[in-house]
């Protein structure tokens, strides 16, 4: 482990160069940073859980060393890749459906409420 350097603090160093603001309210930019980082952390945790399950299934016991050094074979790698894609699709559903709505827009549902209410 690194000596004489606060590796955790330095890992988060900011890249030189003004950061573009994507939203009018700075807090929204911060929330996107927060939400995406949490999404990634949960992804890593889910992958770790998959590793634990596979190790237990294969050998009935686990050790931290075995987890850290686990390398899925190509079949397990593919299963985990598909699971990750499905996870991303669930997290990103709102954005994906927004794209589909832009592509094939519907009238507001209030239009139908009004229309169907007419005698």
């Amino acid at each position, binding site marked *: *482990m*690194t*000596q004489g*350097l606060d*590796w*955790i603090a*330095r*890992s*988060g*160093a*900011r*890249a*030189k*160069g003004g*950061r*573009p603001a*994507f*939203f009018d309210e700075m807090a929204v*930019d911060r929330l*996107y*940073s927060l939400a*995406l*980082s949490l*999404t*990634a*952390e949960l*992804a*890593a*945790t889910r*992958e*770790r859980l998959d*590793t634990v399950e596979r190790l237990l299934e294969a050998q009935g016991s686990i050790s931290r060393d075995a*987890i*850290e*050094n*686990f*390398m*899925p074979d*190509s079949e397990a*790698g*593919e299963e*985990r*890749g*598909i699971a*990750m*894609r499905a996870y*991303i*699709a669930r997290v*990103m559903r709102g*954005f*994906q459906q*927004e*794209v589909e709505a*832009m*592509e094939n*827009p519907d009238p507001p549902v209030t239009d139908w409420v009004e229309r169907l209410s007419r005698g």
Partner: protein
Amino acid sequence: MNDTLPPPYTALQRHPMMPEACHDEAARFNFLTLFNRYLAGDIGRGNRIAYETRVLPAFRDIHRRDPETREEIRLAMNQDPFHRVWSALKRNSMEMRQQNGRQIVLRQIDELDARARAFNETSGLLELDPSIEQPVYAACVDIHCQPGGYHGGERPYDVTVGANYDVGLFATTGGALGSLNDGGGQAVVAWVKANRPNWHPERILDVGCTVGHNAVPFAQHFPDAEVIAIDTAAASLRYGAARAAGLGAKNIRFVQASGEDLSRFPDDHFDWVQTTMFLHELSAESMPRILAECRRVLKPGGLLLHVEQPQYGPDMPLYEQFIRDWDAYNNNEPFWSAMHGIDLKAIMEEAGFPIDHQFVTGVRAVPDKSLFPASPDGEEEDYGRAAIWNAYGAWKPQTASRVAAKEVSA
């Protein structure tokens, strides 16, 4: 392997300098690799839909005409709620890749520095020149949001930035560059072998090599050649030379030098001068100087080859120019837009490569087919990072042009 899935991070080929990723560090890269693909493909198309269905119609209502420049599209799209959200996600993904990579590297930087030192003290592959200064275009911002750029460091003589560049390039590119991130170099070798069979270049110069990931394949595939890889950034060269030594390369040297001043090399010295994804990291002022130097050090009949993302040109729709420009404004690539907008053929001609000696061709990374699917293209392409490039090449004329001859005789 599923034909659309990149391999897991742990399946990548390793070399002795590659930092060790623990379980969750590898898992974070697995997430980012697939997330970047999702952003580029699954919802990336939303940018075009937003443009066509609401941004362009609104622009026409206001201006009574279509946009005339990519800049007009950029300013209009920056007000669009979907493009804002997509850009925020993409920028964050880039920043997370950097922090994840730096955590891996910095928690073991003592070991990495010691390993690099051991390689570099014995291999003879590294030649640093402390008098070389970082040009403004390399130091004004941290290019592609990598803290420290290619040249910075956490302490003197460390390999932080080179190691971080290498450890996370797989995630940045959505797994498109192959096991050793060397898909660019491998693609160029494949092109040269197919188009100039039985060519045995004696000396090859790679300008702007960073960690040498694209130059090492030249050394491996042309074992009789002497490969010189130059960069202004010692921090990247220290890592690159150690990485190359770890991969067993012997016929390559990493030399700290600027492409603007190749005076350490005589005229007509190299058979082949290569740049890979380098020109867009320069400036309008320096690029012609570098091209002229490349020409000077090339032997008559020698090959100059630049691998880049496609130039925009008048035939490329303005929307595509705009979306390809995203990195210029959002990922710290300040010369990207201007470089891709210029007439590169004219600039090459001014540097002494006549038009009829120039060519443009496509090269595409086909890395390690057992592990990797082909890089996505079309609507799925991650503009700016896709492993589908144009190569802008030229053969140096066998005889000096009349203009040059006149200058000599004057």
